[in-house]
Structures are given as structure tokens and as C-alpha cells.
């Protein structure tokens, strides 16, 4: 297990970070030489920091077990920032405007950051629930959060209408808690209780026009297959993608789920939900990213999607027991 991979710090980066922190100014604006960022080591920061000039970059956000969220240029794989406002960051999601939502389980809140920003632009109070993962309705901008409160109390799906400060909560008699949720392109929400053997994995959906969760059966590639390690659900632009070590694509049609196909991922082993990279709305995503906790090392792997296979890149710099990941797409304006 990696408890601290940040043994060294380049002097320039450290100096710049400390200088900015001492001044009390927003950390956004702490710049380091671009050429040094790929080798730069980081240590847990007291303040968040972020490189400048990221508006035109796709950014990968990773929730780590050391309570930091590390941020990378998606294609260059270089560390460009660290967010430190969390006690236990878990699942993440992003909207079409590039805003990033990061659940903080222990703090019972969700923080929203602008693309490349270091200070939250909004905090969603989820108490008394513990947020686990999230999804943004592309048709409304509503925020859905899957709450996993352990076995002591039932979880919920909490939905904040865009602009609202308080959520509507949905519970389900079959799903005691919730570990995954995702909206499709039409604003229908698919949810799951995740991987809780021996209780069983269950699914429910909330139609765009609906007012309650409805349990549904989600078939796998074989009718006898039982879901075992569902870590999350994503919308891949065309189908729901259920993350159960491999990725299984499901068409959800008027509340009925149909198996479509699967993507085998070598060197998988996600400890949290994958994220499917998709920079063209209305089409299917082209890559999948997910954290992998190995015996000695932690990485965030990239794979082609939907073809899968061997990882095309393994990101380890600054990664410590990764959980949720998301991609904030570069800004078009």
C-alpha cells in the first residue's frame, strides 16, 4: 500500500506554493514550469494549488485515499494541481460546462469546482447522509448523489435541482444503500446498491418524469449471471456501462434493461467507479479511466473504449489508493 509517494519536492514548485499560501490569496495562479510538471513530486498540501492556463486542457481528477484530489492534464498525464479540502473524497462527476463535483463522504457534503479551480464554487450539504458517487443530469443540470451510510441507516439518492440548496431524497425497500448512479442522455437515472455480497446487487431507475425509484432487473451476458462487484455506473454516450471489473453495456428502454455487450479490461481491479471519457455528446465514449489498487502500487489506468484490452497508460504519480475519477473537458470558449 502506498501511504506517501511524495518524498521529494522540486524547490521551485515548493517555493511557489508556499509563497502563494502565505499570502492568503487564492491558490489558483501558482505556476510551475510546464516542463517540470511531469517529474514534479508533491506532498500533501495544506492548501490547494493548480497550474494556470488549464482552460484548454481536458483535466483528470482523482480522489485519493490520503484525502487529496490530484488533478492531471488528461492527455499529457502530468500533475497540474492538488485539492485538499476533503476528509474522505470518494466518487466524482463532471458536467458539460466542465464543473467538477467531488463527494466528501465523512464531511457529508459535495464540493463543486470550476474547471481548473482551487476553491469550491458551491458546497452541497448532504447531512445526515454520506455521499459516495454522483451524476449530473445533462438535460437539467440536476445533481444526483448516491448515499452510502453503511449498515446503520438506510442510504438514499439525493437530487439537487439546479440552483436548489436542498435535495429531494429517494429511498428504496430493496436497495438499503446506494453506491452508484448515472443519468442517461434523456435524464433517466439508473442506480445500484453496488457490490454487497451476500445481500445481492440490485438496481432501480428513476424516470425523467417519475417520482419514485422503481426496481428493475438488469441482465448480464448470461441469464444465470449474478452481479458481484458492481463499483459504479456510467453513461457511455449510448448505453449505461456497469462497472463490475469488466464493463457491461446495458440499454435501458422504458424501464427495461437489455444486455448489449461488454468490454474486457486487462489489469483492472477498480476500487471505485470508472469514468468514461467522451468529448463528443451524442456519441459513445472513446476511453475509460479507473483507479487500480495493486499489492504494492496504485495506478490510474487508461484503456481504449469500447475495445478494452491492455491499459494504454498507467498513471502513478501522486496516486494513493485511488477511488473516484472524473474528466472535466476543456472549455470551448
Amino acid at each position: 500500500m502506498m501511504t506517501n509517494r511524495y518524498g521529494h519536492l522540486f524547490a521551485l514548485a515548493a517555493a511557489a506554493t508556499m509563497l502563494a499560501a502565505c499570502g492568503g490569496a487564492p491558490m489558483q495562479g501558482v505556476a510551475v514550469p510546464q516542463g517540470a510538471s511531469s517529474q514534479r513530486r508533491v506532498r500533501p498540501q495544506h492548501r490547494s494549488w493548480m497550474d494556470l492556463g488549464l482552460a484548454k486542457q481536458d483535466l483528470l481528477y482523482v480522489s485519493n485515499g490520503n484525502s487529496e484530489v490530484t488533478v492531471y492534464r488528461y492527455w499529457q498525464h502530468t500533475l497540474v494541481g492538488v485539492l485538499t479540502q476533503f476528509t474522505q473524497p470518494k466518487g466524482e462527476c463532471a458536467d458539460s460546462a466542465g464543473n467538477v463535483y467531488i463527494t466528501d463522504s465523512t464531511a457529508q457534503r459535495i464540493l463543486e469546482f470550476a474547471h481548473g479551480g482551487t476553491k469550491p464554487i458551491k458546497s452541497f450539504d448532504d447531512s445526515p447522509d454520506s455521499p459516495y458517487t454522483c451524476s449530473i443530469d445533462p438535460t437539467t443540470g440536476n445533481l444526483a448523489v448516491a448515499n452510502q451510510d453503511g449498515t446503520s441507516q438506510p442510504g438514499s439518492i439525493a437530487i439537487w435541482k439546479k440552483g436548489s440548496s436542498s435535495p429531494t431524497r429517494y429511498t428504496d425497500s430493496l436497495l438499503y444503500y446506494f453506491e452508484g448512479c448515472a443519468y442517461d442522455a434523456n435524464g433517466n437515472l439508473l442506480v445500484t446498491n453496488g457490490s454487497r455480497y451476500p445481500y445481492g446487487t440490485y438496481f432501480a431507475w428513476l424516470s425523467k418524469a417519475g417520482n419514485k425509484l422503481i426496481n428493475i432487473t438488469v441482465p448480464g451476458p448470461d441469464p444465470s449471471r449474478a452481479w458481484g462487484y458492481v463499483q459504479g455506473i456510467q453513461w457511455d454516450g449510448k448505453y449505461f456501462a456497469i462497472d463490475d471489473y469488466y464493463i457491461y453495456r446495458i440499454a435501458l428502454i422504458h424501464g427495461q434493461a437489455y444486455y448489449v455487450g461488454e468490454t474486457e479490461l486487462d489489469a483492472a481491479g477498480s476500487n471505485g467507479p470508472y469514468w468514461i471519457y467522451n468529448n463528443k455528446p451524442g456519441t459513445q465514449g472513446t476511453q475509460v479511466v479507473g483507479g487500480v489498487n495493486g499489492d504494492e502500487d496504485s495506478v490510474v489506468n487508461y484503456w481504449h473504449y469500447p475495445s478494452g484490452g491492455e491499459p494504454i497508460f498507467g498513471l502513478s504519480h501522486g496516486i494513493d489508493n485511488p477511488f473516484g475519477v472524473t474528466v472535466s473537458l476543456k472549455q470551448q470558449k
Partner: protein
Amino acid sequence: MKRYYWFVPILFVLCACGGNAVAPALGVAPAPHPDRRSSWISPELERTQAPLLFVSDAGTADVYIYNVKTLKVVGTITGFAQPQGECSDNKGNVWVTDASGGTVYELSHRGHLENELVQKGATPVGCTWDPTTGNLAVMSLLGVPSQSGGVLVFPKGVGTPTLYTNSKQYFYNFGDYDAGGNLFFDGRDANGNFMLSELPKGKSSAHTVALTGGTIYFPGMVQWDAAKQDFIVGDQSCGNLYASCVYSVKIAGNTASITGETKLQNSAGGQLCDLVQGVLFNKELLGSDNDFCGSTPSATYIWPYPGGGAPTRYNGKTDSVPVGAAISR
């Protein structure tokens, strides 16, 4: 390292022996659906020659058998994985498609399993029987992996099927033969737009039929109305809403014209949420509302046709996620 929990299903098929037809699947790990019940049929069903309504329920993975006159449940067939659309033949047998299992089950009037057709990789969701040839056409919503669906035609309802497609169609839902043995079926293109296609009798490929006189947003039932010499075509998103209605559609050449609309109400007087597949029988439309809208419980209804409106009879105590409907005479 694959972290799966697989189990071997034990599917008891009790063919016409003790009344039970298909018994539930058992396993050592959580099953993909909560079905743990056994099949049963009532003595009434054993005695009756009256028409019966078979309704498939994807929520419970069962098929319910209703007395058409009373809408009382007189039997339940269990053991399916994901039962979908249905059709019936001139013997009174009912074919039930099972999407997850890639299977079509043939049930007798009394619910006994007569035959099953397995097509690996298919996603059967609809079917129809051709009275002119005895062939069974099965609509496969999708192909696997991640391919478009098609229509599988089983000669005389047995053996190896022939696959027919319309190259412009991606999803395949429901269909029926007209009096001349031409097959019409609906579905959607790859962008999700409604499509109606025709496989002319004796031809090897299907073509698109242009729809005029209105818009159908999401494919529902397709049934030949012999009395009116037109088709009933359902829309599961009537008016582009979560609502259902059916249309009368007249075919002329490569054009299908909407000539009438039948609005359907639920037990509370509201518009039906989701009629997946209904069936026309004796100037009545029988079918179920999969009410994920939350307005009323899911229920099985009978409406006058073509008048529609309020149901004349309904049973709101049985269904979970009702899908297909067929009449067994």
C-alpha cells in the same frame, strides 16, 4: 482475477405432467431477479375453453394467465429470465419471447411448455405467427455484441431461423403479418428515431415504410386488424411524453398513413404511462400499463377499440413490469 459470482441455473421443465410448466430457477448466489415462486394453474383453467389472456411480466419474470371475461388470474408460469412480447398461433398456443435468455417459449392454452427455441446472441422481444405459412417471426431488439437486431423467421416454428434485416433499422421491437403474408415490424434507427419496415412475402430483405399523417416517437405494438384491413401501431411515448396510445395505420405501397388515434386511460382516468404490447380481440384492446410514471399501480386493462378512453375492466393487483400480451383461444 475475475471477481464474479456465477451459479449454474437449474431450470426444471415439467412438460405438461403435473400442471406446472416451467419451475423457477434456483442457485447458490443472488439471482438476477427475485423470482422464487412456483408455477400454478387453477382448476378453472384446466376446465375452460374460454379465451385466455397471457401477460408477460419482466419485473417478476413470470407470465400471468387471465380469464378474459373477468380478468381474474387463473395461472402463473414462472422460470423465465426476462419475458417480453408474445404472440399466438391457430392452435391456441402462446409464444413468449425471453430477451435475457435468448429464447422463445411455446406454451399451450393451459400453460404447459410445448417447445422452446434458443438463439444465442439474440434479444427476442416480439413475435408473430404467420397464418399463411405457419412460420414464426421473432424480433430481436439487438444483436450481441453491440450490433443491430433483426427478425428471425423460424420455418413452421421450429428449427434454424433465417435472419432478415432492414439495413437502416437498428432496434427491432414488434411486428405482425398482414393477410397476404407480408411482415411489418417497427423499431428505431441508430439515432433512436421510430421506423416501420416491411418484409414482403418471399423477399430476402426488408425495406423502410414511410410514415405519414403523424409522428410515432417510440415503437409499441404492431397488429393486423383484419376487420379494418389496417394495422394497429402503438406509441410508447405518445406526443413525445411518458404516455401511450395506439394508431390505426393504413398501408399503401411503401407508405403507412396514420388514419386514427386511440387514447387509453388508466384506472384513475389519466393517460396510460406505458403500454408496451397490447392485443386486439373482439373489438377490445387488451394490455397492461407498466406504470413507472407513478400515477397508478401497474395493471392489466381492457378498453373498447377503436373508441379507447376509460377501461371497461382492469386488474391492478398482479402486475409489476408488464410487457407482452397475447390471446389463447
